[in-house]
């Protein structure tokens, strides 16, 4: 698949801090690419270099094979993590303001319908709810009919309904063959939306692939959860891969039948056994660690 944006040996250094440490990245056209990582991992710095907002200390970024330039500004759509809008303007006026900043644009009525803005068109942008505001910001990111769209933590702070509503919107945008680069702290969001993900830590990409590939690389097929009080000391010496998860002990296995048999043979109480699949959150903790970051 053709790459729409490519980063080569990307690095960003601040005094005493290496925010991005020699990243190579190639994002194919038409997919939703998730960039995940703990706070301070360097993902916002990376994404802002890819957006052309900041210059890298070293390394290159190319869009459709060309260095970032005027064309890029016309063809890229960006929704920042934190942004403000011109005050005292309505939703419609804000759309019109941004529409006039580009040469090629999507008709505003189309955006209004796509992002469900019809009911709030004449509302002051300062009086929007979190979900309405994010829908407007997405509409602004789409106003120039971009081929590449950056969404930097777009659902942070939204309630579950508004978040799922936003996911539907992102899926709709993706279905129009747009490339989306998404950063998020919500693993279920990345799992629901992303075709490919990269997990960053300490300025580097520590894991990259499709969610299914990454899960199968790092874990067995399923995880068995047994309350610590039920397992006693019987688990020791069984040769199973046991992970401490607070009140629960988790056993990762790709041979469910055999594992269950061994547990029963060794007298482990399975009355409150739970079986679940591994998630991206497990993967995230696994590759970045549990230690609280400063």
């Amino acid at each position, binding site marked *: 698949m053709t790459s729409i944006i490519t980063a080569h040996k990307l690095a960003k250094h601040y005094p005493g801090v290496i925010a991005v440490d020699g990243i190579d990245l190639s994002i194919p056209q038409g997919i939703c690419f998730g960039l995940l990582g703990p706070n301070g991992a360097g993902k916002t710095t990376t994404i802002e270099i890819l957006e052309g907002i900041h210059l890298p200390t070293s390394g290159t970024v190319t869009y459709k094979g060309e260095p970032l330039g005027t064309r890029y500004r016309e063809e890229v759509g960006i929704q*920042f993590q934190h942004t403000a*809008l011109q005050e005292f*303007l309505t939703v419609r006026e804000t759309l019109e303001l941004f529409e006039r900043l580009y040469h090629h644009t999507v008709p505003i009525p189309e955006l209004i319908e796509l992002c469900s803005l019809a009911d709030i068109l004449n509302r002051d942008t300062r009086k929007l709810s979190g979900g309405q505001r994010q829908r407007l910001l997405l509409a602004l990111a789409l106003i120039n009919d971009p081929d590449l769209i950056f969404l930097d933590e777009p659902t942070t702070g939204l309630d579950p309904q508004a978040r799922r509503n936003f996911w539907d919107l992102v899926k709709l945008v993706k279905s129009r063959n747009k490339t989306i680069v998404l950063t998020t702290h919500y693993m279920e969001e990345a799992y629901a939306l992303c075709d490919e993900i990269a997990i960053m830590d300490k300025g580097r990409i520590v894991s990259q692939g499709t969610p299914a590939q990454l899960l199968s690389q790092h874990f067995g097929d399923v995880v068995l959860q047994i309350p610590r009080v039920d397992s006693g000391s019987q688990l020791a010496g069984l040769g199973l891969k046991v992970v401490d998860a607070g009140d629960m002990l988790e056993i990762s296995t790709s041979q469910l039948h055999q594992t269950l048999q061994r547990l029963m043979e060794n007298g482990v109480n399975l009355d409150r056994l739970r079986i679940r699949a591994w998630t991206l959150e497990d993967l995230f903790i696994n590759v970045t660690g549990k230690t609280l970051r400063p």
Partner: protein
Amino acid sequence: MRKFLAVLHARNMEFLRDRSALVLNLAMPFLLVIGLAATFSGNNKELYKIGLVGGMEALTRVAPVLQATQHIKFVDYTDLKTAIDKVKHHQLDMLVDVSGTPKYWVNASSPNGYMLERIVWGTEGNLFQRQQVEGKEIRYVDWFLPGILGMNMMFSCLFGVGFVIVRYRKNGFLKRLKATPLGAFHFLFAQLISRLLLIMLITIVVYTGCNLFIEFNMQGSYWTLILVATLGSMCMISIGLLIAARTASEEFAGGILNAVTWPMMLLSGAWFSLEGTHNWVKQLAQIFPLTHMIDATRAIMSEGATLAQVMPQVWILSAMGAVFLLLGALVFKWE
């Protein structure tokens, strides 16, 4: 042009819909002009002001009793014509020339001049030759009006533009604009023109409104007056843009804006004339655009100065405005 007009329109809407700021911008100069007019409408000055050509030493020698009379302030002049003009406009109560044959000039319609004339006769007899001039009085309100309007324009231009841009930078709006094809010059120029249009509109409304009650003395051309006000405003907006070109701290920007506005307010002749102050103070005042704007405005309104006569100020304001705008655009950062 399309991008520029879009940003210009958005900024205008933002300003006009911010009712509290708009009312404050309109009300403040109204209140200042009317309040000061009421306070200083009477001829309640305690001092008589006499222009002096020839120096204090000569006056002490020629007319020692007059020189020693209390409640008279002598202001030195080297240019006789300038001093005579001041008597014509009641800015001086009398002019005394002791450089040759002692003479005095007095305005026939000046009550203070009438009183001083009696003092001169009483103290020095017929020592001085009497010269009479004619001219309409420039009331204090006519004198301070350009200062009040100029000062209001200065605050609106500097704080209105400076703080707005710092706020845009701090809340991330500038970063959002940076992600679009909008160039820095388009953005800054739109801010400049938006503020200029609004401040000129407000100034015209305030002038017209106050004029209904006070009937200002306007000897010159309104077009020349508008040209000077426009150039002065552009110059001060450009200073605001320069100050706000990089910082994201409202506290820092506020400090710098205060450091610029206070000396301008005190030394540009907005509140009081710099006549009689040290020469270095007058020289220092020349670095402020407000000084040139107020000088030109007073000359147009009080003395009927033509465009040709205020061309020095027009050039200075144009040059200062261009330099500050260019510097602001060069050092501007979106973040």
